[in-house]
């Protein structure tokens, strides 16, 4: 017998146990990614297929380095949130759910940090 009221039972709980927090982070990061994505397409995408020297020169610009670091970190936070949303929708079973949520989040943080570090190293002189 559960004596809790309906409100007490659901308060603060969603599948992700965080209420609307994840939704809000999704909106916030998507707003930040509008200008950052355009900067990335403008400054970094043309470097793919280019030479190492061109890339080193490009990242000497603080604007390029800073917007790229922000783009990578915020894109991976956005990706982590999006993947969590997909996982809680489609994956059933507690163990699999926890394994996937933990591994995708850690992988996203790791990739985001690695990308940001690489750009910082290039900007400060590889």
């Amino acid at each position: 017998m559960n004596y809790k009221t309906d409100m007490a039972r659901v308060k603060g709980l969603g599948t992700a146990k965080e209420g609307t927090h994840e939704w809000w982070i999704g909106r916030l990061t998507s707003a930040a990614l509008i200008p950052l994505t355009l900067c990335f397409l403008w400054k970094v995408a043309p470097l793919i297929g280019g030479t190492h020297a061109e890339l080193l020169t490009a990242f000497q610009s603080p604007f390029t380095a800073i917007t790229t670091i922000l783009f990578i970190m915020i894109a991976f936070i956005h990706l982590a949130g999006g993947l969590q949303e997909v996982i809680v929708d489609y994956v059933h079973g507690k163990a699999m759910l926890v394994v996937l949520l933990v591994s995708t989040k850690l992988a996203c943080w790791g990739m985001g940090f690695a990308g940001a570090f690489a750009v910082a190293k290039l900007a400060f002189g590889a």
Partner: protein
Amino acid sequence: MADVNRGKRPLSPHISIYRTEINMITSILNRITGAGMMLAAVLIVWWLLAAATSETYFDFVNGILTSWLGLIIMFGSLWALWFHFLGGLRHLVMDFGYGYELKSVDFWGWAIVALSFVLTAASIYCLAVN
């Protein structure tokens, strides 16, 4: 009592019941393009790490990204990026309560599909002349 009927409630009709509409397609495509760009994101980070490691390693990864398979992934992800970008913009507008009329749902559904291809073509052109 809270849960007298739990598990025995009637179910609402699920997606297989409805005629396919453009907003169903754009909705699931936003999710697919978002998750799909994971691959390109990992490749770009690898590419940047290689550049920060050495010129030889950079040339190796740069070669992989510009191989035929790499280019398919890169250009596919470019389209995915534009689609997700436009879909995301539309979601942000809809979060403010605009664009829910049936006419604008249909119009903007088709518009972001068309615009995603136009912007992909335009950015490939810009990259090519660069």
